[in-house]
């Protein structure tokens, strides 16, 4: 979805927003509230360092290390922090496990809360009105939009992130991955599978 600013009246819509943002940065910098170099560093962090690979490693570790999996489900904040590959983990992370009986899906209906530390920035669809409005009422319809169909009897559990708790779905390990390394398993773990709108790739779906 292209960013399109309908709120302005005539032509050159993006540049209105762009000029406005630039003016704001000028004011905040002149006031001494922000340091443009620090802003650059934040942008760079989100563009290059924080992404769903972090979460994928967490999932792959849980798939291969039963003690870690237990720790993750008991206290995800602490377990992920001890894993060490994510430099800083905020509090309030909760991991929820998919099973043959239950499929978990995460949404934030009121804004767009998302576990940035482990998944990076949320995709546009996650922040969109279609997802926020429908996930709690028609999750199977939303899954169909993602070409995911689950057995009719599977319980669908939708977690609406209404407080500062952030949820990470621990998907089921695909069959046929016995003996795989953590890194290879992590390649199967898609972002959407950790939100609950997708399933992990199957072994045949990635390059060998």
């Amino acid at each position, binding site marked *: *979805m*292209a*960013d*399109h*600013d309908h*709120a302005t009246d005539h032509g050159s819509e*993006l540049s209105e*927003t*762009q000029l406005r943002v*630039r*003016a*704001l*940065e*000028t004011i*905040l910098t*002149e006031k*001494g*509230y*922000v*340091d443009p170099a*620090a*802003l650059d*560093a*934040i*942008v760079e*962090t*989100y563009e290059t360092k924080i992404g769903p690979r972090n979460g994928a490693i967490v999932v792959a570790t849980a798939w291969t290390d039963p003690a870690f999996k237990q720790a993750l489900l008991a206290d995800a904040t602490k377990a992920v922090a001890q894993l060490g590959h994510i*430099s*800083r983990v*905020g509090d*309030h992370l*909760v991991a929820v496990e998919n099973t043959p009986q239950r499929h978990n899906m995460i*949404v934030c*209906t*009121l*804004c767009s809360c998302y576990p*940035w530390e482990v998944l*990076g920035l949320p995709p*546009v*669809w996650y922040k*969109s*009105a*279609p*997802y926020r409005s429908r*996930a*709690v*009422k*028609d999750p199977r319809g939303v899954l169909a*939009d993602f070409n995911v169909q689950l057995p009719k*009897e599977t*319980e*669908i*559990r*939708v977690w*609406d*992130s*209404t*407080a*500062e*708790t952030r949820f990470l779905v621990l998907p089921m390990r695909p069959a046929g991955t016995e003996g795989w390394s953590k890194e290879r398993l992590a390649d199967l773990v898609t972002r959407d599978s950790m939100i609950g709108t997708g399933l992990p790739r199957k072994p045949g779906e990635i390059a060998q």
Partner: protein
Amino acid sequence: MNGIHDMGGMDGFGKVEAELNEPPFHESWEGRVLAMQRAMGYAGAWQIDHGRFAQEALPPQVYLASSYYRRWLLGMESNLLERGYVAPDEMAAGHALRPAKPLNRKLTTEVVQKGMARSSFYRQQQGPARFKPGDRVRTKNFHPQTHTRLPRYARGKPGMIELIHGCHAYPDSVAVGQGDNPQWLYTVVFDGRDIWGPDADRTLKISIDAFEPYLEPA
């Protein structure tokens, strides 16, 4: 407030459309908005629920017509103005015209490079938890004009306490400048049919994270 932001269960927005190979930002200004917001948050200019409340208070037609980061921008502008960090004439001029209002600290490149963790919302408990996992509860029916994190679809509904997350700053108080007012936070799970009626998907369970004042025993 019962704003357009509270859209859980609304119909009519259409299909969810995912973008292949979506970049972190679609326009460079989006990254600047995110970064300014993080920097002002680090500086203690306002709290996360003030940021949310400012976006919720946008007129619904503006909210819906604005992209995610555009809403951040509009919310940030209103917090800057409302809290006196920037004056309207400065906003109009695009330059600072007078000295800054002091802030607790300033975000530096070093802080960013060390890794910025999200703030903790844990707070000292003010008393024992009223509920424990397994308790039947009912969410309250209230409709404040101010910020709340109890969505409309989940008001006045029977549910069960599933998890207890400790004591947290209470958004309903924080957003209106009444301090942290710490409250116990629970995950409350509802049967889909209690929320959407008898025609709901029978396999659907929905949970919210609910602060203790949102709940009464059922």
